[in-house]
């Protein structure tokens, strides 16, 4: 279990996850900076991700799609606000249409990632924040499948362990 703590900040509409990963900081950074590695963790096993564009620089974009079991495809786009290899990045995460344009009325979250060397490994802090309460309501309409799938994949991992 690599996740050390999960905090929910209701006032700031944020979730803060802290994980300790057994790998040097450069390898953890590659999970984000190498599109082929990013694909391996972005989507749940039922919805594998394919990364299309991958420009991990400030102002750059990462676009990707996830393919569901019925062949259904959903697109997402990250807009990078700040990138400081190999320690931090910040981006907005939005649902998008096929050319990577965020879809109006779908939820937007801001993600901040901070990596620090910690013993033999790396501590990763992820802060995910809803832009507004409307985004939160929209997430409930859009995100449930994803959320449920995550829960299921975690159960599978536990059973396999």
């Amino acid at each position: 279990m690599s996740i050390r703590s999960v905090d929910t900040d209701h006032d700031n509409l944020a979730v803060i996850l802290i994980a300790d990963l057994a790998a040097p900081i450069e390898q953890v950074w590659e999970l984000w900076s190498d599109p082929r590695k990013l694909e391996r963790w972005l989507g749940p096993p039922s919805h594998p991700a394919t990364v299309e564009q991958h420009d991990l620089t400030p102002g750059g974009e990462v676009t990707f799609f996830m393919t569901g079991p019925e062949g259904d495809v959903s697109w997402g786009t990250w807009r990078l606000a700040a990138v400081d290899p190999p320690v931090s990045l910040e981006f907005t995460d939005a649902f998008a249409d096929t050319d990577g344009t965020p879809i109006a009325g779908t939820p937007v979250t801001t993600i901040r990632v901070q990596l620090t060397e910690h013993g033999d490994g790396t501590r990763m802090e992820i802060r995910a924040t809803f832009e507004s309460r409307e985004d939160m309501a929209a997430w409930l309409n859009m995100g449930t499948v994803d959320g449920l799938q995550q829960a299921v994949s975690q159960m599978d991992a536990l059973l396999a362990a």
Partner: protein
Amino acid sequence: MYRTVALIWITYNLMVVGGLADDAIDELFRALADPTRRDILRRCAVGEPSVSRLAQAYPVSFAAVQKHVAVLERAGLVTKERRGREQLVSTNAGAVGRARRALDELERTWSGRVERMSDVLSQSTTRRPA
């Protein structure tokens, strides 16, 4: 139908689960005794309207609607929240539940991703230097 059920549920929660004192229950029933206030409450149980949007729905003044909202707020039935120039009104049960669910979902999404990151790392670091 759904809205009436929501209204009864909120009232039940406040009285029974909330363990209100007698005078608070009096206030609760006074707040519920007015048809406009009951209608405001129904609207707030399924959405989060602003005071000005509520005011448009009734043939009374903005000030009168504001007063109704204040009565509901004192009885603990709704919460007002300022966002920009607007004041949004929601039932406590509805707003809190929605916020919690959305944050839980966001947390599950990222927890799942972090767990998978950990798997990817363990697959690519088969041997660690001694």
